[in-house]
Structure formats: C-alpha cells, structure tokens
C-alpha cells in the first residue's frame, strides 16, 4: 500500500471515528433529555392523579356526611309524624299510604318504622316484610340500627353500601321513636353518590387525560399492587402488561416513596406512589404510560442530520487528506524515481528538494551519498584496473618462471636408463619453489630441488637468482657440497632482504649409478627401491642465504637399476585439508610404498592428484613441487604389447618399437626392418585373419638376446603359415604385377629367421633379427 493511500485511509478513518462518536454522543444525550422531559411530564401527571384520588375521596366523604345529617332530620320528622298519626288513631294502612306518597314524591326512597319488637310494620314499600335483628351475622347491615330500639342510641347513620336483600347501594339513617321504643329509618338509593363520584373522581380525570391523547394509558394500583383502575387510549396497539417482577419492584419503590420510569416498546411508563392523602389508595401507585414517538422522530431527524453532516465532513476531510498526502508523497515519488535511475547505474542524478523539511535533509544526504558513491566507483575502477594490470603481470611472471624450469619429458631421450618427471604447483601465480636437472658432463646428471622462504614476487625473484647462480656454479665444480657452499656465499652477499632457500643437490653418474648429494636444510628425498621408500642420510647443512660460514658436506651412495629418487618440497607434506590436517610425511610414505614401482610420470601425476584431493576446497597455502627419477628402469630387455585388430593400432606398435630400439641403441635401419616385418604380419592378420568382425587381440613380444632381437606374434585368427604362402614373383614386368601380395614377402626377407607354429587355436610366429648396437 502506498504512503498516499495509507495517509488517506488513516485520515478518513480518524474523521469517521470522530464524526460518528460526536453524532452518537449528541444523539444519545438528546434522547436522554427528551426522555427526561417526558418522564417529568409523566411524573407530574402521576402525582396530580395521586392527589386527585385523595381529593375525590374527601369530597365524597363530606357530601355523604351532609346527606347523613339531613337524613337524621328527615327520620326525626318521620318519628314525630308517626307518633302524632297513631295518637290521632290513624290506621297503619293509612300511615303506610302517606309514607309511600312521600317516598314517591321526594328523593327520599324508603321508610322503615318498627314496633317495639323490631318488626317494620310501617314502611313505604309494603311488598317487603322486614324485621330488624340484633344479630350481626343475620343482618350485617341492619343490626347496626338495633341500639335505637334498645334505647342505647338516639341516631345512627350508615355509609352507603350494598344492601343485604339485593345488591343495590343504599344509604340508611335512623333515629329512636319519640312515643315508644322503636326504629325510625329512612333510606336513600345511593346511586347518585356513585354518579357524583364518577363525575368528579379519579376515573373521570383518568379518562379525560387518556382521551386528550398525550397519555396512552393510566393504571391505578392499590396497596396490594392490584389494579383498581385502568384506562387506555383506544385505537392503539395494546401496551405491554406489567409483570410480577415490575409489581415487586413497584412495591419496594412505593415503600421507599420513590418514583420510577421505564421505557418499553417505545412507551415510557412513569410510576408515582400514592401517599397518605390517597385515602383508601394509600400505599398504592399510579402508572402513567406516555408515547415516545416524538422522541423517536426527533432522534431520527437528528440521525439524518448527523449522517448528512458526517458525509459532508468525511468528503471534505478526504479531499483535504488527498491533497495533503499528495503534497507529502510527491517528493517521495520523485525520490523513488531518482533512486531507481541511480540503482540502474546513472550516478549523475541529483534530487532537487531543498529546505529544512525532513525530505530536504534526506535529499541533501542522498545527493551526498550519490556523490560519494560516484567517487567510490571511480576509485574502484582505478583499483580494479591496477589489480588487473598486476594480475596480468603476475601471469606473465608466472609464465617466465615456469619457462625457467625444464618441462620436456622425457628430458633425455638418449638416456634410456633415466626416467625423469617433475611438476610444480604454485600456491600463487609465482612461487619460490623450483627444481632443475642437467648434465654437467657427458655422464653426470645434476639434480636440484629448492624452496625459497616466503611466497609471491619476492620469493620468485630470489628463486630466479638462485637458479641462475646454480647453473653458473655447476659449470666448473664436481661435488654437490661445493655447489651448495659457493651458491651460499653468492646468496649471502648483499642479501638485504634476509631471504633464504633450502636446497637439495645431487649428482648422479648415469653409467655407474653413483649418487653424490648434499643437503642445505631441505626435506630429505626418498630412495625408492623394491624394499620400500626411505629417506637419504642427512648431510647436516643449513639453508642457503643465512650465513656465509655455513659448511656443507657430501654423501655418496649407489643407485641400483630399478631404484628411484623422490625429491619434494614441504608444500607436499604440509598441504592442509579443510580441518587443518596436514598431508604429512606418514601419508607421503604410504603413498611412496604403494607407488614405488611406478614410472616417474605416474608417481608425479598421482602424488599431485592425492595432494589436491587432500586439500580440496582449501586455498593452497604453499607451492607443491616434486621431482622423480627412476634409474635403469628402461633397461629391461623385453617388452610385450597387446594390439586390437584395428589398423590404427600400428602407430602404437611403431612408437613402442622405436622407443625400444632407442633405449637399446639399436641401428635405426634394423629397427625399421623390425617395424616393417611386424607391420606386414599384423596388417595381414587384421585384414585377412578373422572370420568375424569381432574384436581380437594380437600379442607382440620383443626381447633382446645375444646380438639378436627375438620377435613373437601371437593371434587367435584362422591358421595361417606365412612360410607356406605363395611367394610373390618380383621378377614380373610392371603391367603383369598384381597390386598386393608383397607384404609377407617383405617380412620374410627383412628378418633373419621365421618360424610358424599352430598352438591350439593360436598362430605363433617367431622371428629373429640380428642386431648390433650402434657405437655410442
């Protein structure tokens, strides 16, 4: 993600979070305020209702008390009226008729006037015969009037209540008789009281409030939390009922005289307890349920506004953020492009951002870095060029150095008794090791191996000096100790660099095998014989170049034919493997034991191979040099060569016969005769000897006897006796001569004798050729 995108995203997220949080807090507090207001309103209503409930009760009580007093008056008048009427001799029927008329014409509904026994013989309603009783169980209502008959009370007023005889609400009042003990009772049908209560009581107020539409429902609970009154707005979905848990909660709140409000299904219900003034409702509560639609719609409007404003702020913020991000990232973008160009190799690029901003400082640093990089590159180019020049010079120096060493093998083809091979593996391009061998007179061969202290150019220069001096010194001297002594004196002269060289020098008389040698601090060579490999006896001299006074001494021994010399430098034994383990003298001796019979070339090649294998993967630390001489190895008087039945094999045959001839100094023409005879025989066998196309072997053996070479050819071709072949007629003129058939003729004529034998499946041809050695 780019920095620009990140900045934009970050700013947008922050803005969105801020706007949403603000809108949320504002919305929530507005809702809270609106709900509080509604709650307060509900509370006012609930408290008003609670007070109204008390007020209604008081008024009704006062009204009923006034009516009660009025009824006492009416009963007293009736008592006097009855006493006068009976004294005047009115019959009960007459009196009842009058009473009935009064009840009919006035609001007074009933008269009940008893005799002394409690029997209501005078009454407005003649259809009912009623006798008062003192028993409260029998007459729960009427017994309250018995004290009037008993003379214990003068007047009794009873509150309006349901009658025992029917369920109508009546209010009764009574007085004692004026003429004799009796009960004079009047009764009102109290329905009007209920109507009055209905007109001015709590219920009416509730209905009025609910009908007004600002209140959804009002519920009145008594002290047992039973609903005593309930009113709700018609045409509205039923609001949730109060639950048992609500009621328990209300009971506690009422007890603590606290109000409460709760919001349920978008309806806010406020509860207020009814206090002492509530009369019979004391300890109860009033629940007022108010609509919160206006709150919801206000919140909705606010939310819409918030969304609109938020969107606007976000849009504006994003645009500003985009511009800001662009302003910040443009230089970075410029940077990126430039660094890309610079990483592509164009170091001339600079960044044009100035000022004290972080980017300005970075640009300055960057330009500085770029400048330094350019300088470094330039420096590196120069260094590399110098290094390449030095390397190329080192390579030339190495070639010059290597050209100073004899590298043509075999070095003395005329000396069949000498098998010499040597190799040097410099650790650096040029090194301090060298070997040399040369004849100091007709028969005596000087052998040298040396190791200059140090490596590289100084060692190489010192080596060149040493080698040049050595050749000069051996011009006139005969013994190796003299060679070392004089070489040492020359090297010590003006040796300011204090370099030194270890040298082993030996002189071999090739006729007798006598070997004189002297050592100047070098690793002692090994003598290779049938018995094994052993070092020569030390002659005790120190390395050359250290002190002019060092004396050297010679030792003498005789090399037997077949024995050899192994000369080496410490680069061989001190070659290290990856773990730091040396090739060691022990490993060298094991190697020489195994290889003591091999040719000089094989010993050198396989030693270098072994050393390389030992130190594979590790940079070579020192020059590895070895010189091997086998004495008299080529003097064997016989050899065998196995040829395949292919014409190109003839070249090998010719080469080996030439080498054999050269080793034994046979006359070249005699060697050619042998080559020719063998070529003719072998060519004949290859061309005509086999019935199949398979591979066959032809064995040729040569051995040098007394004045003659014995030649044997053995093959598994079909039986063929050259002696029986029809001899070619060499007398015929040109045009009659057959082309071919000369080979066997030539072979027979060029050797001195030829015998044929069929041995089993083999042809054996034995030829003899007289030879005499050339004069040396």
């Amino acid at each position, binding site marked *: 993600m780019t920095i620009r995108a990140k900045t934009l995203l970050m700013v947008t997220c922050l803005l969105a979070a801020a706007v949403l949080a603000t809108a949320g807090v504002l919305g929530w507090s507005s809702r809270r305020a609106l709900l509080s207001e509604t709650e307060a309103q509900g509370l006012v209503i609930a408290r008003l209702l609670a007070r109204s409930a008390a007020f209604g009760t008081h008024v009704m009580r006062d009204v009923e008390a006034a009516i009660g007093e009025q009824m006492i008056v009416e009963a007293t008048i009736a008592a006097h009226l009855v006493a006068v009427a009976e004294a005047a001799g009115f019959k009960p029927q007459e009196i009842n008729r009058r009473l009935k008329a009064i009840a009919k014409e006035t609001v007074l509904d009933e008269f009940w006037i008893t005799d002394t026994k409690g029997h209501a013989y005078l009454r407005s309603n003649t259809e009912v015969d009623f006798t008062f009783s003192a028993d409260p169980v029998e007459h729960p209502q009427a017994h309250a009037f018995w004290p009037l008959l008993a003379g214990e009370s003068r007047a009794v007023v009873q509150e309006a209540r349901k009658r025992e005889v029917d369920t109508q609400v009546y209010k009764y009042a009574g007085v004692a008789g004026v003429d004799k003990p009796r009960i004079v009772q009047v009764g009102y049908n109290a329905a009007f009281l209920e109507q009055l209560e209905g007109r001015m009581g709590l219920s009416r107020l509730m209905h009025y409030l609910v009908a007004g539409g600002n209140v959804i429902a009002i519920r009145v609970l008594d002290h047992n939390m039973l609903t005593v009154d309930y009113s709700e707005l018609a045409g509205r979905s039923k609001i949730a009922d109060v639950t048992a848990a609500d009621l328990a909660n209300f009971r506690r709140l009422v007890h603590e005289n606290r109000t409460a409000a709760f919001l349920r299904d978008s309806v806010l219900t406020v509860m207020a307890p009814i206090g002492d003034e509530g009369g019979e409702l004391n300890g109860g509560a009033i629940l007022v349920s108010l609509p919160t639609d206006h709150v919801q719609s206000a919140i909705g409007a606010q939310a819409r506004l918030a969304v609109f404003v938020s969107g606007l702020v976000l849009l504006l913020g994003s645009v500003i953020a985009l511009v800001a991000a662009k302003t910040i990232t443009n230089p970075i973008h410029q940077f990126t492009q430039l660094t890309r160009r610079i990483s592509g190799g164009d170091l001339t690029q600079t960044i044009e951002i100035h000022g004290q901003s972080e980017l300005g400082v970075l640009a300055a640093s960057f330009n500085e870095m770029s400048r330094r990089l350019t300088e470094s590159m330039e420096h590196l180019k120069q260094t590399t060029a110098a290094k390449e020049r030095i390397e190329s010079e080192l390579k030339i120096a190495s070639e010059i150095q290597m050209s100073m060493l004899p590298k043509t093998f075999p070095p003395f083809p005329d000396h069949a008794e000498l098998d010499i091979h040597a190799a040097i593996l410099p650790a650096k391009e040029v090194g301090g090791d060298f070997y040399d061998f040369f004849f100091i007179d007709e028969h005596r061969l000087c052998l040298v191996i040396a190791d200059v202290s140090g490596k590289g150019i100084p060692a190489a220069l010192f080596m060149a000096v040493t080698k040049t001096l050595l050749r000069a010194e051996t011009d006139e001297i005969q013994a190796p100790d003299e060679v070392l002594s004089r070489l040492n004196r020359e090297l010590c002269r003006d040796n300011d660099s204090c370099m030194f060289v270890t040298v082993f020098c030996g002189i071999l008389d090739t006729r007798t095998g006598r070997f004189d040698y002297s050592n100047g601090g070098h690793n002692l060579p090994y003598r290779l014989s049938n018995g094994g490999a052993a070092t020569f006896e030390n002659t005790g001299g120190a390395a050359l170049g250290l002190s002019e006074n060092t004396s050297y001494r010679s030792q003498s021994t005789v090399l037997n034919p077949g024995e050899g010399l192994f000369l080496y430098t410490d680069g061989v034994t001190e070659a290290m493997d990856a773990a730091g383990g040396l090739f060691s003298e022990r490993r060298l001796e094991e190697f020489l034991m195994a290889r003591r019979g091999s040719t000089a070339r094989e010993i050198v090649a396989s030693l270098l191979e072994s050393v390389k294998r030992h130190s594979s993967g590790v940079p070579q630390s020192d020059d590895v040099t070895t010189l091997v001489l086998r004495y008299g190895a080529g003097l064997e008087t016989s050899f065998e060569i196995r040829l395949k039945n292919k014409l190109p094999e*003839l070249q090998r045959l010719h080469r080996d016969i030439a080498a054999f001839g050269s080793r034994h100094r046979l006359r070249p023409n005699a060697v050619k005769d042998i080559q020719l005879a063998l070529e003719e025989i072998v*060519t004949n066998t290859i061309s005509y000897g086999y019935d199949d196309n398979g591979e066959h072997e032809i064995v040729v053996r040569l051995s040098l006897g007394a004045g003659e070479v014995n030649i044997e050819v053995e093959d598994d071709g079909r039986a063929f006796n050259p002696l029986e072949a029809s001899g070619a007629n060499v007398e015929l*003129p040109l045009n009659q*001569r057959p082309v071919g058939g000369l080979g066997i*003729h*030539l072979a027979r004529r060029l050797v001195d004798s030829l015998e044929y034998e069929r041995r089993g499946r083999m042809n054996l041809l034995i030829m003899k050729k007289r030879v005499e050695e050339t004069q040396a």
Partner: protein
Amino acid sequence: MNISEDRKPGVLILGLSERLDATTAKAFEDKILGVIEAGDRRLVIDLAQLEYVSSAGLRVFLLAAKRLGAVQGKLAISGLNDHVRQVFDIAGFSSILSLYPSRDEAIKHVAA
C-alpha cells in the same frame, strides 16, 4: 605422413615425408589417383623426406604407375633413402619403376 605439392612446367611433384605405412597409405592413394584423374600425366614423387615405407605404400606406387602407363603418362620416383631403397629392391620395384637419386633428374626424366 605429409604430402607436399610443387609444380614445374608440365610436371607435378608430390613430396612425401615421415612414414608411408598401412595407416597412411590410403591418404596417399586418394591424393595420387585424384591428380591423375584431374589430368596430370607427368608426375614426380619425391621421397627424400620419407623415412619408412611398407607394402601398403608400395602398392600405391604400383597402382599409380599402372594408371599413368594406361594413359601414356610418366612417373619418376626420387630421393629414396637406404631403407626405402632396400624395400624397393626386395619388392623388385627398382627394375619396374623409374628411380632417380635427385628430384631434378626425376623431373628431367618425366619432362622429356
């Protein structure tokens, strides 16, 4: 074996060196039959540098002499060393081929 080629007026001189044996005779045969085929009729084969010859080589000389004889051409061989001369003698070639000690004599012979 190497074959050198030199032209004098009317004469082609082929010079052989080193060894002419069973392994090299085929190259020489191809060469000499090639030049005869191409129209050369007067040939000198100079063996001054040839060290060795075997019957495989002799066969080519014989073949070349026969081919040239058939087209009235002329062949001369010069500069045989001792060993080569000995082989030619044993094979009876000395009497049927024109051998000359020097190249110039051989050229003179074929040019005549």
